[in-house]
């Protein structure tokens, strides 16, 4: 079990770096070295700056002509600190899953930077990129499609070792896979089974074990429990929290379920139509939201407790989220916002601590992209 612990990583890294330096590309070696260096708790491990992803809309079969773009992610910035969980919430089409893909370098960013330990991963390639991939892993939403049905559990969890053979010597792999199964609460004897012999919750554990195999520092979780049954969701959430403590992981937890995000997150960012609407600690966002969208989102969450919901105000938004191919001018939320005025259509509100709260030290003093930000508690009964 000890091999899986993070403390071992620096020891591992040193011989690895010296081996890399013999390769001619010195800069690449430097990048790999930087990537493999440890980061102390509370330092930013991932810094996202003005990240943009536009998917071109084309017309024509032979000669494709761009006629527009879906602005899936349109300039977002945030930091992820070592050892913390940053929750990202938003409705479908807000771009949260695209953010996950960009951070995993599965999609190429249109503009902007993602700094991982000072290295801009959007510009890396080759060995340096591979080193980044070892350190940033992902847990997928759908446990039914994220595991190859033709591979045994042992092959699935062992695949990271095949791709990054330096992490575990060949003779050691079977034992490592069985340890991983044990860590995620599955019987190590299941190693030769196929994914379809497991239930959704068990499959998600297999997916988590695969994500843990390379001792990553960051795990990006894209709706990791939304496909699971309620009684199994809690098991998986508890497991993820346990693993975070054990392996000092940083989580980027993307979900639409605000209750679960609050439970697991240290900080929360709210996205709307490719922009970050509001970001702060879980208390700041849930108990002292200042952006109207956050307030509406929170008030719409059904609460399974009739006594708690009685005094609650419900803000029911009208209409749907506009198309990201043609977002509204100015503030993107203005078309559904009850506070919208002239200014919202012309001037885009920036994500910053609102002026009226800048001086104070209240929990409302956190970044919010609204011209008319004001505090409103919609979660607690009046």
């Amino acid at each position: 079990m000890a091999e899986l612990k993070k403390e071992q990583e620096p020891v591992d890294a040193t011989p690895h770096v010296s081996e890399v330096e013999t390769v001619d590309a010195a800069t690449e070696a430097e990048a790999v070295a930087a990537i493999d260096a440890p980061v102390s708790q509370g330092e930013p491990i991932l810094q996202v700056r003005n990240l943009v992803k536009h998917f071109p809309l084309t017309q024509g079969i032979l000669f494709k002509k761009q006629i527009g773009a879906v602005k899936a992610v349109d300039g977002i910035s945030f930091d992820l600190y070592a050892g913390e969980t940053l929750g990202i919430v938003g409705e479908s089409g807000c771009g949260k899953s695209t953010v996950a893909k960009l951070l995993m370098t599965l999609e190429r960013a249109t503009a902007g930077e993602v700094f991982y330990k000072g290295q801009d991963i959007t510009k890396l390639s080759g060995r340096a990129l591979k080193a980044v991939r070892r350190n940033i892993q992902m847990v997928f939403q759908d446990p039914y499609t994220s595991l190859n049905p033709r591979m045994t559990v042992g092959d699935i969890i062992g695949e990271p070792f095949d791709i990054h053979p330096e992490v575990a010597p060949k003779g050691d792999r079977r034992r490592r896979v069985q340890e991983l199964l044990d860590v995620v609460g599955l019987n190590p004897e299941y190693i030769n089974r196929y994914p379809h012999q497991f239930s959704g919750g068990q499959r998600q554990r297999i997916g988590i074990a695969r994500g843990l195999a390379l001792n990553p520092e960051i795990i990006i979780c894209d709706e990791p429990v939304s496909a699971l049954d309620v009684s199994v969701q809690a098991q998986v959430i508890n497991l993820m929290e346990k693993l975070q403590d054990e392996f000092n992981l940083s989580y980027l937890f993307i979900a639409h379920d605000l209750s679960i995000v609050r439970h697991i997150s240290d900080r929360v960012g709210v996205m709307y139509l490719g922009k970050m609407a509001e970001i702060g600690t879980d208390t700041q966002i849930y108990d002292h939201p200042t952006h109207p969208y956050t307030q509406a989102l929170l008030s719409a969450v059904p609460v399974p407790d009739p006594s708690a919901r009685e005094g609650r105000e419900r803000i029911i938004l009208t209409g749907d989220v506009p198309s990201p191919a043609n977002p509204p001018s100015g503030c993107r939320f203005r078309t559904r916002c009850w506070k919208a005025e002239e200014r919202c259509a012309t001037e885009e509100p920036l994500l910053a601590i609102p002026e009226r709260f800048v001086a104070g030290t209240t929990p409302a003093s956190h970044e919010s992209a609204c011209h008319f930000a004001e505090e409103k508690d919609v979660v607690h009964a009046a």
Partner: protein
Amino acid sequence: MPDTTALTKSTDVPAEAQTPAATDAGPAPGKPRSLWSDAWHDLRRNPLFLISMVLILLLAVMAIFPGLFTSASPRDANLAEHYLQHPKWGNFFAPDWLGYDVQGRSIYARVVYGARASITVGVVVTIAVTLTGLVIGMLAGYFGGWLDTILSRITDVFFGVPFIVGAMVILTTFEERSVWVVILSMAFLGWTSIARVARGSVITIKQADYVVAAKALGASTTRILTRHILPNAIAPVIVVATIALGGYIAAEATLSFLGIGLAEPTVSWGIDVSTAKDQLRNAPYVLVIPSVMVSITVLSFLMFGDAVRNALDPKMR
């Protein structure tokens, strides 16, 4: 009552971790089940499959070891003694069992030896077509973009050529037409349907999360294609290929019958049918027997393909 074991264990670890498959999983907890074992389970119980399998095995043995079935040679011609000698139905497996043809050759021997050409052409063309189609389809489907555009247009062009007519055109350019020439010309034209099926299948599979997961791990393209895409995309390709096999055997017979496929001295059912057509009135058995052999062979492979499709196609379940 295996489930109760969970109750005595500690509560903080999920019970699923401790009771080996007691609470879920299939009926045979120890035995891994895959698509192929499921398919095999279905096939073993399918009479259509069993019958076709027996026939195919018989034909395969006949093609490899024709000497086991008859002592007569298919090329021994004795016009004086056996010219159009009628079958002696009682003399099972004797050279004169099925009679003699217009050149005084044993029809039984020719039928036995003719299996080799048909089966060779069918199997080799299928293998060649599957490999070519799979590679082209996978490249087009996985990489997309301009490569897909080019490969798909080429596929369309080949697909537009009528198979028999195309093969005729190619074959007429050859002076000597051996089995391999026939195989090459058929494979040259036949890969398109496999390529199309493979491309479609790959396009679906490449969007699956497990492929994305492999990419996120930094897996190479070769690894993704061989470990993730191919094993999952292969099933529909196999279905199309097994069904096509029967078609290639029929096509070989057709081409040989038309006189532009295999040629003497190769022994082939198609050639025999062709030479027998002049004697249809006075000796119909000379034509009927090789024709029946072609039909049985084609039918066996079609039934086999059908059974495989039913077993592999999840929608049929």
